[in-house]
């Protein structure tokens, strides 16, 4: 058996893999937060709850309609995204003119409602969701065992993250979005329906969270509190990376996942707290965040 720094290489790469998986979710969620914040000026506290909704949507689709993982990967985010659109129309649109903090409080309340309903319906225990047949098993790479499903999650996350980056930074639609972020009034004057764009942006961000939730379902159990635990870590990721840059959110997400994985190998006691410690250090050294522009 190979060893690296006195750690069996299997364990090291195994934890690195878990770190990359967690990093995928950090990246997807902080990306969604950044996109929503850019357009709506709201920190979407219910992002974690919507991630959880995605996982539950996949679970329920399988249970009641027999819809398997593959269609659920598309259908669940669309369904949850539609609830996002409804939430934006019903609640969020009224508070854009207020202090940003009200957005945080409102979406925190929404998160409590969603999590409370889920706990009432499904209890706090996790529900299992099986890995789809096509992705069962794995490959032995010689230095480590790579389960197919995990490789898939990392691959797809990367594709979705860079897809989102591409749309926002390199397409006409993305140009409208960025322009509307800078100066919504002027963009409206050019005849672009900015309120509709805001609504759809929120729907998209929520769908992104739900998509992450569907992918997470076979890895972690599907449980009502899966989102609230994650969202706070993602907040720390966002503080570290800053929300000014899409690419920054992606890089920070994956990077911190890896760091967390490594910490699990070398100093397991700190694995829960390492991201917060890094946040504290970044605040000391670079208060604006690694990719941040101002506050």
């Amino acid at each position: 058996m190979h060893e690296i720094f006195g750690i069996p290489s299997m364990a090291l790469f195994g934890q690195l893999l878990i770190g990359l998986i967690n990093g995928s979710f950090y990246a997807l969620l902080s990306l969604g937060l950044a996109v929503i914040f850019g357009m709506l000026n709201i920190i979407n506290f219910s992002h974690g709850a919507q991630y959880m909704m995605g996982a539950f949507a996949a679970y329920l689709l399988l249970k009641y309609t027999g819809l398997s993982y593959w269609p659920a990967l598309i259908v669940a985010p669309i369904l949850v995204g539609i609830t996002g659109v409804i939430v934006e129309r019903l609640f969020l649109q009224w508070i854009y003119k207020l202090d940003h903090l009200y957005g945080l409080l409102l979406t925190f309340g929404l998160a409590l409602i969603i999590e409370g309903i889920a706990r009432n319906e499904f209890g706090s225990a996790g529900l299992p969701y099986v890995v789809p047949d096509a992705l069962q098993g794995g490959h032995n790479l010689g230095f480590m065992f790579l389960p197919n499903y995990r490789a898939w999650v990392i691959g797809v996350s990367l594709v979705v993250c860079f897809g989102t980056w591409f749309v926002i930074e390199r397409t006409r639609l993305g140009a409208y979005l960025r322009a509307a972020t800078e100066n919504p009034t002027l963009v409206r004057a050019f005849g672009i329906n900015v309120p509709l764009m805001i609504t759809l942006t929120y729907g998209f961000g929520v769908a992104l969270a739900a998509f992450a939730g569907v992918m997470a379902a076979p890895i972690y159990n599907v449980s009502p509190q899966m989102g609230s635990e994650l969202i706070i870590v993602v907040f720390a990721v966002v503080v570290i990376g800053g929300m000014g840059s899409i690419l920054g959110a992606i890089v920070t997400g994956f990077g911190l996942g890896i760091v967390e994985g490594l910490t699990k190998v070398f100093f397991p006691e700190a694995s829960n707290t390492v991201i917060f410690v890094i946040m504290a250090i970044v605040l000391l050294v670079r208060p604006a965040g690694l990719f941040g522009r101002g506050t």
Partner: protein
Amino acid sequence: MDKPLNAHVNTLGGSPALRRNGETIAFAVMVVILIVAPFFTYPLFLMEVMCFALFACAFNLLIGYVGLLSFGHALYFGWASYLSAYSAKAWGFPPELAILTGTLTAAVCGLIAGSLAIRRQGIYFAMITLALAQMMFFVALRAKLTGGEDGIQAVPRGYLFGLIDLHDQTAMYILVLVIFLGGFLLIHRIIHSPFGEVLKAIRENEPRAISLGFKVDRYKLIAFVLSATLAGLAGSTKAIVLQLASLTDVNWPMSGEVVLMTLVGGLGTIFGPVVGSFVILTMQYKLASVGEWVLVIQGAIFVACVLLFRRGIVGEIAARLKR
């Protein structure tokens, strides 16, 4: 430009003398109610309300008067509660020293967390305080001192100054009442001091306060430490009253709860947090049987407060009276 979080407070106007009279009357009414109430309802419940009211008042000092939303106040409340309980139980500290130990713990935590959090503004400040609190939650989960999932149970109330037996409910009640009123008056004093005026100036227009030569960061940090310390005082007292310190006190839902109490009562009003904590705790007791629906109801109250009811109960009443 966004409206500041407490824009409504400034629109209330009214002469300072009139306001001061109103506050004195309200304060007297509150004291009378707190003295009479134990004859009509459970003293233990009232003591819990007072602890949470002080906690919410401490939180309100930041959000209401400096405009800083701390989403991690459970850190100071919870860790103070742990240290208070631990020092009373393991080291045999008398209650006054145990409460002091807990309060000092919160002050130190507040100094460290505050000096990190004030490096960013607005929404980031909220996220940083939340993240730091979550970090200390994980520490509490693993640390030996906290007793992990079990918490610290059967904390002795002990003898105040070695003389007064706090197992006597009346003595305990009086102590909690004194601590609560002391904390409340201190916060009132802070808000109406020149220092408090600077805090309000920072809330209204931070760049301007800077340009006037105020060291804004120092003011913010002092306010943060004061708020954390008073939250710690509340947590320490709670640990002695309920003879319990647990993970609930230090976890994020507790941070959310104190935000909710203050929001319901009225951000930036002196009596709002007191009313809010009474309302929320009463609701929790009444709804204890419906289980997780409490979470849903709390969430709904958050949404309703933000959309329809931003002044809170006391803010709403004050606005009606001014009209």
